[in-house]
């Protein structure tokens, strides 16, 4: 059998964008630097050569205004894709996104709609600091009328991106910067991954671990460690944060009786609280122990790696928490940790992999 085609996450996004621009003549992509020689970390590279400046657009640094402009275009027949290099900048556009885009279809009685994708990037590490590495997905998941997507694989990134462009609603599509170099199987041509469906990526019976975006990679790493210790976790990649596929999660927790959720955002009032609440409301009598969440502490992001080292939760935290939930003795947990974490120690904690050299 021929080896399956592998693409980087960035390439998957680019290919999806390319296909959408080709198939939907009313679609266009706009964002600061989108047509520039670096092409949004490579995700929009050279699309301008193929589709021209009228469909692959740079823009002034006017986040709220351009969002409103995209809404106006969407209301009159276009399908805009608006790209922001950091989710921090979207705070400038929250007015148009929340006050207008999210509510338009509802407040005008279903008469018109806004097919628009706002693609943006969250991240961590390498000294981006408080204003350049926020994980603000929770703000968006609270707003009725928005859909919020956070893929974790190149396959899903492509399929969900295409679904987002095809969808008739405003979509917040969030990439995690640390996924950009990962590779995976990506079919050629157009395909859709359904919005609103979580994915069970490992079947198991001891505990349900649901996660978003990059944290799914951490859950897989943790799973590999605990598997060896005889623990059998069920892993769920949430993929669509809103509307949340709670059915899949609930079904799993009814089976396993234990639940943990991993999210890259802040803990208090974060997306993880919503998932836990949904689970508790629906599986209370099945729960063997209190659900747990692993998120960022309620602290702005420090710049120095002297502190980010302790700021970001990692595989170790997951393993520890799972084993505690399974009532392991603390000495046994310690020995698993020290055994399994040796290798990890050599990778600096502020880069996704050893090829990464900054400055972004």
């Amino acid at each position, binding site marked *: 059998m021929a080896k399956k085609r592998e693409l980087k996450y960035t390439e998957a996004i680019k290919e999806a964008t390319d296909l959408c621009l080709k198939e939907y003549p009313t679609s266009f992509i706009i964002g600061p630097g989108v047509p520039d020689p670096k092409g949004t970390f490579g995700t929009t590279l050279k699309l301008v050569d193929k589709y021209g400046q009228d469909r692959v657009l740079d823009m002034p640094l006017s986040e*709220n*205004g351009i969002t*409103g402009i995209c809404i106006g275009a969407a209301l009159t027949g276009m399908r805009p894709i608006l790209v922001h290099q950091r989710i921090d900048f979207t705070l400038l556009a929250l007015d148009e996104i929340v006050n207008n885009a999210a509510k*338009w279809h509802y*407040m*005008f009685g279903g*008469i018109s709609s806004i097919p628009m994708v706002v693609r943006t990037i969250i991240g961590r590490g390498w000294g981006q600091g408080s204003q350049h590495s926020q994980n603000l997905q929770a703000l968006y998941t609270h707003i009725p009328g928005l859909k919020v997507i956070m893929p974790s694989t190149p396959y899903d990134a492509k399929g969900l991106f295409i679904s987002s462009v095809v969808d008739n609603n405003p979509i917040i599509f969030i990439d995690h910067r640390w996924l950009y170099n990962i590779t995976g199987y990506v079919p050629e041509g157009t395909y859709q991954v359904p919005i609103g469906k979580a994915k069970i990526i490992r079947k198991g019976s001891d505990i349900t671990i649901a996660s978003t975006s990059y944290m799914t990679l951490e859950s897989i790493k943790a799973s590999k460690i605990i598997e060896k210790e005889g623990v059998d976790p069920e892993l769920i990649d949430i993929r669509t944060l809103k509307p949340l596929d709670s059915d899949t999660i609930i079904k799993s927790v009814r089976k396993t009786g234990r639940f943990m959720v991993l999210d890259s955002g802040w803990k208090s009032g974060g997306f993880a609280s919503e998932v836990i609440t949904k689970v508790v409301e629906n599986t209370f009598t099945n729960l063997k122990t209190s659900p747990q969440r692993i998120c960022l502490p309620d602290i702005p992001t420090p710049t120095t790696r002297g502190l980010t080292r302790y700021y970001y939760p990692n595989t170790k935290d997951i393993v520890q928490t799972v084993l505690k939930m399974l009532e392991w003795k603390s000495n046994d947990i310690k020995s698993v940790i020290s055994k399994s974490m040796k290798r990890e120690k050599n990778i600096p904690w502020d880069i996704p992999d050893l090829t990464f050299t900054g400055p972004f």
Partner: protein
Amino acid sequence: MDKKTQLSLFQKMYLIRSMEEKIVELYPEQEMRCPVHLCIGQEAVAAGVCENLTKEDYVFSNHRSHAHYLAKGGDPKGLLAELYGKVTGCSRGRGGSMHLIDLSVNFIGATPILGGTIPMAVGAALSSKMQGKGNISVVFFGDAAVEEGIFHESLNYASLRKLPVLFICENNLYSVQTPLSKRQPNRKISSVAIGHSIKSYREDGNNVVKVYDLAKKSINKIRKAHEPIFLEFLTYRWREHCGPYYDYNLGYRSKEEIEKWEKQCPLKKYKRNLLSKNIVTSKEIEQISHNISIEIEEAVDFAKKSSFPPRNELEKFVYSE
């Protein structure tokens, strides 16, 4: 200007005025349960501008939107039913006075967040350009919207891309009870647009002929030269900022000021003008008035008799299919 246009200008203004007066009359019944921002005194701007538009042209508006909606040809029934919160309203009752829409005449939408629809008009113009349509985009907003950053972001982009959009600032000197002098430096609002390299003019907004002429010239220019234009019209709101009553008692504007502006009533002035120049007869005026009052009574009746959206509509339309 031909007679048809002149009659149409009068008709538009009269319709707007009558509708607003009808709301004044009915609002105290406490059955229209939503804020209303009446435009009595400001009718000439909407009428004079929209008279130059085709059905294909897009219009966007703000919280004070009744005039724009009616001048563009929006359905009076849809407006009144919307104010009453009925399912037959232009937004199925979900919007109220501040969220009007009538896609049959390309009135794309009015919303009350200041400045919110200004970029949308620019986006609609971009969309027309991308789709090779020939229509233009118009947005109405007040003097306070100019203070919002998004106004400038929109003008910058329209200017950069030379988009066919007409910006209409209705400068009525106040934002709620706050005068312009507490909010902006002492310079013409129209001069702001020049900073964005947009052609910009200021005109008396209570003289419908002047409004019409300037709008006509500007719209022709936009259609031909494919570039945005900014117009500032000086006008005045007679009633309270929100609601049906006068607000002389509040004391934030002087009686003299109000009276000065009431003398500049755009409707009376124009009617006098039409009659004195023998362009129309009193008979014709009466006929128009009569027809409009019937139209409005029908709309009231329609609105009152319509039902509220059924309970099962609550969850509908959060997402589009």
